[in-house]
Structures are given as structure tokens and as C-alpha cells.
């Protein structure tokens, strides 16, 4: 089994990311601790996805330092991520969850019960034996959530989880995310959907051009933004 060491708080200290001569993220410092969902907000190209990948430990920063619970090793002990376009393994829905459980080190005899519980949690019990790649977009997103939850994460990162979904599917995904948050999982969502920010956020990290522009409680950010960029973004202006 994995060490019970905690991945929280997640601390970024002056983190920058360069791709060639382009600066994707510019000296971002922030701390993410347990609590209500944190929404990473900003226009397209602001660096939300890059920031999430760094938080997951998928990429290394060009400069600065990231620590998880005080540790700097990028081993993905208690973290999980939901990509914007999750890739389904070429197996059944239930085999996808079984795979994630096996990778998370869950003993074989416990897996069947966990698969049933996880598929039930995301509302896919009836589709357990369906090939995962034959599921609809919303169903695939929920299956990816089940896979992420199979890792029993302390922190769950989601990249635009509902960007390509219709309202009904969006509600399905958001309800699962909120129930995960209630069960004590720290949720971090990258989103440019202000409605979603209002529905889900406890606090907001506002990114512009790779830099941390504003950070605060969701109500404050939405109703009384302190920076001109945030005010413009909330008005619906193009923030470049």
C-alpha cells in the first residue's frame, strides 16, 4: 500500500514555465489547502491547463518550486486529474475502473465491490459492460471521474470538465464533483464558464497571460473584482 503521507497543502513558489521563448506561466505563487472547491478562471490561453498539469506533477516547472504536503517529489500518491478530453481505455466501462483501482494498489479481492460502488456513484451502473469508447461524451466524462475517484484522491484536478457537454450532462458531472467535495476531497477546476464558477466555487484563482492576477472568495471575485482585468473578464470583454 501507499504511504499515508498527505499531498496537501499544494504550494507553488514563484513557478514559471517556458516553452521555447514563450512564457506559459510567469512567477505564480499560491497555496491550495483543504476546503471548498477552488476554481482556476481566466480567458483561453491564460495558462489554466498548464497550471493544472504542474499541480498534478505531469510537467516540471522551468523555474520555481512545487511541493505537495511539503514534499517535492512528483510521485502521484494522492492526486488525480480529469483531462478535458479523457481517453477511454479500449475495454468495458467496468474494466476501465478496475484498471484505475489496480494502478492505485487496491487489492484484487476488494476491487469488485469498489467497481460497483464507483459506477453507482457516477450513475453508470447500467452501462458497466458497455465498451467505454461507445459511451456518449457525458458518460465518458463520468467514467473518467469514476477512474479518478478510484485513486481515492485527496486532491482532484479537473480541466474544463464540462466544456463539451450539454446542460443535463453538465449537471450530472457537477453533482458528482460537489458530492466528492462534500466527502472531503479538495477540488480544483479550471473553467472559463462563469456560471460554473458561481455554482461551484469556494474561492477563485484568476489567471491572465500566465500570471496570477487575482485570488479570493468566489462572491468577492464575481461581485467586487479588484483588478481591471477581472472586471473586464466578468463584463464579457476580451481580455488579451
Amino acid at each position, binding site marked *: 500500500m501507499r504511504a499515508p503521507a498527505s499531498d496537501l497543502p499544494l504550494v507553488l513558489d514563484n513557478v514559471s514555465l517556458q516553452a521555447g521563448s514563450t512564457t506559459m506561466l510567469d512567477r505564480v505563487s499560491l497555496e491550495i489547502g483543504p476546503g471548498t472547491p477552488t476554481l482556476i478562471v481566466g480567458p483561453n490561453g491564460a495558462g489554466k491547463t498548464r497550471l493544472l498539469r504542474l499541480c498534478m506533477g505531469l510537467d516540471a516547472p522551468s523555474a520555481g518550486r512545487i511541493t505537495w504536503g511539503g514534499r517535492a517529489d512528483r510521485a502521484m500518491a494522492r492526486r488525480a486529474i480529469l483531462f478535458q478530453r479523457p481517453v477511454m481505455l479500449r475495454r468495458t466501462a467496468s474494466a476501465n475502473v478496475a*484498471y484505475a483501482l489496480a*494502478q492505485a494498489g487496491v487489492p484484487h479481492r476488494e476491487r469488485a465491490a469498489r467497481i460497483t460502488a464507483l459506477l453507482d456513484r457516477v450513475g453508470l451502473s447500467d452501462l458497466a459492460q458497455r*465498451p467505454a469508447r461507445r459511451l456518449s461524451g457525458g458518460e465518458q466524462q463520468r467514467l473518467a471521474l469514476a477512474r479518478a475517484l478510484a485513486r481515492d484522491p485527496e486532491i482532484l484536478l479537473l480541466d474544463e470538465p464540462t466544456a463539451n457537454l450539454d446542460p443535463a450532462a453538465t449537471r450530472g458531472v457537477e453533482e458528482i464533483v460537489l458530492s466528492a467535495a462534500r466527502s472531503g476531497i479538495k477540488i480544483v477546476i479550471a473553467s472559463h464558464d462563469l456560471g460554473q464558477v458561481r455554482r461551484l466555487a469556494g474561492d477563485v484563482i484568476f489567471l491572465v497571460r500566465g500570471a496570477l492576477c487575482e485570488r479570493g472568495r468566489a462572491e468577492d471575485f464575481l461581485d467586487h473584482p479588484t483588478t481591471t482585468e477581472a472586471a473586464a473578464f466578468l463584463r464579457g470583454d476580451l481580455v488579451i
Partner: protein
Amino acid sequence: MSDQLSAWQLILNGDPALFAIVRLSLAVSLSAVALAALIGMPLGALLGLTRFPARSVLVVLLNALMGLPPVVVGLAVYLLLSRSGPLGSFGILFTPAAMVVAQTILIVPIIAAPTRQTVEDLWAEYRDELTAMDVSPVGRMTTLLWDARFSLVTALLAGFGRAAAEVGAVMIVGGNIDGFTRTMTTAIALETSKGDLPLAMGLGLVLVAIVLAINAAAWGTRVWSERQAG
């Protein structure tokens, strides 16, 4: 005309000499495919998943080896296994074992090259998910091989088709010994030159039927898998 008639009679009457040859051919080629799969699939997956300086050279070489002439493989294995060769002490030259060795060498590239390509394409798609799930390097290989299983069946069938149809390698290292190392292809070559056309044609018909069946199976697998896995 009468030659063709007797060819069919040999098949329909279950001529023991004919079917002993068919059995040996299938045993040799199927063993070679099994061995080549055990070597070629991990090799292809490894080459698809690793990055090192001379990798492109190896990829080009592997692709080129798919067209390896069977007689050249036969000659190389002959030199290795002949009494004065480095592996001569095994004493397996002119046995079915030597034929399996030669065919295995011949079809390892035919299985490894498409495996490399398939695994590499699939890795581009799976990389983020598998990394985020903390999958070990060996786990990545087995996951990708399993998820590429339908494409890999096609590679296996191609390897079998090549093995069953080649004559040069088995002729040189097997020696075409009657009742011992005579396969369908070597028998056809011999019987034709001897003028025993019915047996040659009977074997030819069986061989073509097998190759056809293999290709139908490859096609069917592809269609079925596209329906299954999407």
C-alpha cells in the same frame, strides 16, 4: 485435366502423405508465429516506448527487415547450425526445430514493426492518462499491447501468412526430407520438378485455401474490433 481431378481426389480422400505434409507445415509455421510473437511484440513495444539516439536507425532497420529474403535467412541459419557453425553442437540442422528457428527469425520483424507503430501511436493518445495513474514502465507496455490487441492480431496473421508461404528458408535448413521436414511449399517445388503434378496441385490448393482463410480472418477481426472497441 486428369491431374486436377486426382489433386481433388487426394484432398477429398484424405491422402495420408498429403495431410502429414500439411500437418508438419502448420506445426512449424504456428510454432514460429508463437515464438516470433513472444519476441516481436515486447521488442516492438519497447522500441515504440523508448527514446535513445540510435532509435531511428533501428526503426528503419526493423522496417527494412520485413522484406528479408527467406533464402538469405535460410543461409544464415544454415551457417549457424551446420556442424562447424557456432551453434552446430545442438545438431538440429535438417530437423523441424531448425525450420522453426529460421521462420521465427523471418517473421519477428513482420510482427515487431507494426507493433512498434501501433504502440507508438497509442502511447501518444494514452500518455497523459497513464502517467497520471502512475503506471510503471512494464505496466505501460502490457497496457498498450493489450489495448492494441485487435491491430496486433492482424500483425500475427500477416506473420503466419508469410511463414506458411515461404519456401527458401525451410528448404535450406530443413532439407525437404520425406516424412520428416517436407512442408507444403518444399513438396510443391519438388513434386513439380519430378512431374508428380497431382500431389503438387493438391498441396497448392490446400496452401491457397489456408492463406485465404487467414486473410478472411484478418479482415473479420478488423471489422469486428471496430464495432466492439470503437
